[in-house]
């Protein structure tokens, strides 16, 4: 990881310099929010709600820490990077290794209408032209968002990238790379998505959806993709159909 000048100047002699992934505006908010989280975590603990209490204190501490240092362990764990995207944007990056050759994984993805089979927030992707498609997503509470997307790069067996066009509810861009994994392990699939949650009251509903599309969701999506490709279907622990 390359180091910027500011990272070096912020590092302490007793502390290894760390990468920064929290943008400046967010750092201020983090300091305030962190204290609140840690406090409510303590309150939970006193109600013997250990697991969530500890998690909240940990998260609270993390917010305080990232406010001070510009590094967020939670963001790191979530794969979110708000420093290297445009202002207001949210970058999510995740990778998975799938035991099939890059061509086959690419083929499955390139058929965009397959995406809702493993991306839980997507309701439908409709191919509208050789390089264009229409996307429909749903979020918490049944709110939905739609946008048109255009493919920018399409290198068979290697990479697909796209960005939203026109009046998108949630402007976004992304890319997926397919790379042969070493030792016959199959394909390394790396997905990078940048979201730009809209501001103002009108954008609130859409922002909620963007909030739901976090790195954990992407991670679960990729695990489902792996299941579908390696096993032939999504694994379920359910016992009955309803």
């Amino acid at each position, binding site marked *: 990881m390359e180091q910027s000048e500011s990272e070096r100047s912020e590092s302490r002699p007793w502390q290894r310099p760390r990468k920064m992934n929290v943008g400046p505006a967010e750092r201020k908010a983090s300091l305030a929010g962190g204290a609140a989280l840690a406090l409510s975590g303590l309150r939970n603990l006193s109600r013997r709600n250990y697991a969530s209490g500890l998690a909240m204190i940990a998260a609270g501490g993390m917010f305080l820490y990232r406010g001070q240092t510009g590094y967020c362990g939670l963001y790191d764990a979530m794969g979110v990077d708000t420093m290297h995207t445009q202002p207001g944007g949210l970058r999510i990056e995740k990778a998975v290794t799938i035991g099939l050759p890059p061509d086959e994984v690419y083929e499955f993805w390139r058929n965009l209408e397959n995406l809702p089979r493993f991306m839980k927030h997507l309701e439908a992707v409709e191919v509208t032209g050789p390089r264009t498609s229409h996307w429909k997503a749903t979020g918490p509470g049944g709110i939905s968002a739609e946008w048109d997307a255009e493919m920018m790069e399409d290198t068979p067996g290697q990479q697909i990238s796209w960005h939203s066009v026109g009046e998108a509810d949630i402007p976004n861009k992304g890319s997926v790379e397919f790379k042969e994994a070493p030792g016959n392990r199959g394909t390394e699939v790396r997905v990078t998505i940048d979201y730009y949650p809209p501001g103002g009251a009108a954008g609130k509903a859409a922002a909620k959806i963007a909030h739901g599309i976090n790195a954990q969701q992407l991670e679960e999506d990729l695990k489902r993709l792996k299941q579908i490709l390696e*096993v032939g279907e999504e694994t379920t622990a359910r016992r009955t159909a309803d």
Partner: protein
Amino acid sequence: MRAVCWHGRHDVRVDEVADPQILSKNDAIVKVALTCICGSDLHLYNGYVPTMKKGDILGHEFVGEIVEVGSRVTRFHVGDRVIVPFPISCGACWYCKHELWSLCDNSNPNAWMLEHMYGDTGGGIFGYSHLYGGFAGGQAEYVRVPFADVGLERIPSGVPYEQVVLLTDILPTGYQAAYYCNINPGDTVAVWGCGPVGLMAMMSARHLGAERVIGIDRFPDRLQAARAQCQAEVLNYEEVDVAEALQNMTGGRGPDSCIDAVGMEAVGTGFEGVYDSVKQALRLETDRASALRQLAKACRKGGTLSIVGVYAGFVDKFPMGALFAKGLTLRCGQAHVHKYLPHLVKLVAEQQLNPSSIITHRLPLQEAPMGYKMFLNKQDACIKIVLDPQAGATGTERAPQGEGA
């Protein structure tokens, strides 16, 4: 159907629930003939494993008969009698293909939870919390078994269910523990914990050629079982300093391999024991590690620590110095049951191993709540309880006793 459901700490009940259904073409529905209460079920019972929900069906050790199969199941048919390994494995991922079955990439729909806790995922397990997938367990009349072709193992005709029910977990677990010790002629293997898994580990160590096995526990019934079932020498850790006793028994060398069949609820003695209990109660330390510390101290230089007891979180004061100074090897993890099953089924069918000799109690499913209590408190010389979901009547029945058990 009836099923043993978790309702909270020290609260399990036999509830009436809907029958399971085939949900995937790879599924089989197994009618449970026998199922066990396992030592690791006690971790759930004691409330030490997070992500349990009210109504979760318990049990990961069960055998039975197939009553329905999905359309993609080819190796098995309705009427087949089968052993069901406790780990759920897809058979298609890199880990399954490399015989690391319990580390399967695809069988745990909640894999991300484990990933956040441990840094990587583990496969699903029947009836073992939502961390391990949230699959319904086998302490029930029927179970949905995913990846039937991959997981199930046929029971040879003529071999009764009793003789193979312990092959679902504790025998392969004990076997893997002994297998990990790389036993050479003349070796001494010490096993902490003479509960079911400890006994299976001793039995397996003997089978794999250990010259001596030494069982360590504090319950006289268990020490007696180790002597009788595994021809073990025994130590009561409440009566002797274990490390010193082991040194003296092995010419000052220490055992060649040490197996931890106790896990996170070890009962320590003295100040260390109090320290762990207090920290665990306050959730400052999740696992009590007194057994683990003794293992590291007692093992001979260059020896192996093989850990099969379940650990879930963090331990304090792990003797890293001893590990390093003595060049010890540490091996651990959930058993890759699928890997050992064919061999173990053969050994049991040929009566070279007799794991069922440790079964002390057989109860109707209805009596499960009493069984959990009895097993937890080690009452009535209880070592291993088998539940029979098909037995309608209530009342306990002592299993026929092996010599001296």
